């Protein structure tokens, strides 16, 4: 399987990449790690006339902390996230999530910015971003804007990214040290997308829930924020009944498409199960 013919461009800076994007317009696609786009091009689902490879732009890589915010370059790979001491220490949820993405070889190439920009509801980073309260830096030749992750994902393969824009950085407020967290993902095999998955961050005050965020992967046309489930838990004691009710509310917003991973009913049930597991794990990790 070989992609259709295209011109290849390897800019060395963000302005150069933006210039190429402006020059070729609809004909151009940005290449990040290439492990979603190149397979789509081999299957001829995507047939860009120009491929703009972001791999040679050093300023799009790296993980650092500044003023209580983690700043991750969009071209940072999944393995770089997994091996980051800073993230293991400050944001272990992101490491836990990245470890469940694809397989080792794909994680050497696959990037967080590519995962997010692609808008595939099966991708794992969107749910992680929603529960971490992340925001994204989008650059264009007319400037830059910073948009919250909540609201960025519009539907299957559609996001707020406009033609001519490049996601350059992911910003995550450092979670409070006592934050409980979990990413619970059901998949058929290594490398598969989630049948259903749930991301949770949780802050406890004594025995009651101070704040909680829940997001679901691959059970709708886009990542889903389970707001009613979150509301049902705030201020409550997190016992089995409260967890079951939150899972019921999370299941009520799911609208998955049946495929070889299962029918819709099964996937909704699994979204409930993943929500319960993620809440329990987050509770066991949360400081009181």
């Amino acid at each position: 399987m070989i992609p259709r013919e295209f011109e290849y461009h390897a800019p060395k800076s963000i302005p150069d990449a933006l210039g190429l994007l402006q020059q070729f317009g609809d004909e151009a696609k940005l290449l990040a790690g290439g492990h979603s786009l190149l397979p789509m091009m081999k299957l001829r689902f995507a047939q860009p006339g120009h491929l703009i490879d972001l791999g040679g732009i050093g300023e799009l890589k790296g993980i650092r902390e500044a003023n209580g915010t983690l700043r991750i370059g969009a071209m940072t790979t999944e393995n770089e996230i997994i091996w980051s001491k800073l993230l293991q220490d400050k944001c272990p949820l992101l490491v836990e999530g990245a470890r469940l993405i694809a397989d080792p070889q794909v994680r050497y190439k696959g990037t967080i910015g590519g995962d997010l920009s692609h808008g595939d509801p099966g991708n794992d980073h969107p749910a992680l971003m929603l529960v971490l309260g992340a925001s994204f830096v989008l650059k264009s030749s007319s400037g830059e804007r910073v948009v919250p992750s909540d609201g960025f994902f519009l539907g299957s393969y559609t996001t707020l990214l406009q033609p001519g824009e490049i996601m350059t950085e992911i910003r995550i407020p450092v979670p409070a040290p006592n934050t409980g967290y979990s990413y619970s993902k059901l998949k058929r095999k290594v490398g598969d997308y989630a049948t259903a998955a749930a991301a949770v961050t949780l802050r406890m005050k004594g025995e009651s829930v101070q704040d909680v965020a829940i997001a679901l992967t691959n059970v709708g046309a886009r990542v889903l924020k389970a707001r009613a489930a979150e509301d049902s838990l705030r201020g409550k004691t997190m016992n089995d009944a409260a967890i079951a009710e939150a899972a019921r509310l999370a299941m009520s917003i799911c609208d998955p498409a049946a495929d070889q991973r299962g029918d819709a009913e099964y996937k909704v049930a699994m979204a409930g199960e993943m929500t319960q597991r993620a809440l329990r794990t987050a509770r066991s990790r949360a400081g009181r």
Partner: protein
Amino acid sequence: MVKKQPVSFKLNGTDVDVLVEPRELLIHTLRERLQHTGPHIGCETSHCGACTVDLNGMSVKSCTVLTVQCRDAEVLTVEGLEQGGTLHALQEGFTQAHGLQCGFCTPGMITRAYRLLKENPSPSEEEIRYWMAGNLCRCTGYQNIVKAVQYAANKMSLARTGT
């Protein structure tokens, strides 16, 4: 017809130059232009790992990398592991521990394990299984592949400590 581009990189320590269309995949350049048929074409969809090569210190599936992305890169294939007629500890491990039956997945397995042991010279069994999970084998059930990697890790560790 899109213009071909010259690409130079190091293959198993030797400089090579090729002239390729941008759409040419690394696996085809290696196998068809450079006669390195160690990396195999298995699934062509980045699932099976048979085409795994080492690219700038990363294990990658060469069916999902464009050759034009490899400018000035260092590429290592299974052909580059044997030195002066002596098999690499991993190659020896796969023969000693019976880590293969049909052998189709083996070059990818060995090339992947090479990078794994560079990053983690004494991995636990769990770590071997987790970090080798991008390579599929339909014969062995993986048990002897894990043993082969452990054999190599032990041998390389002994060589390092000189005992």
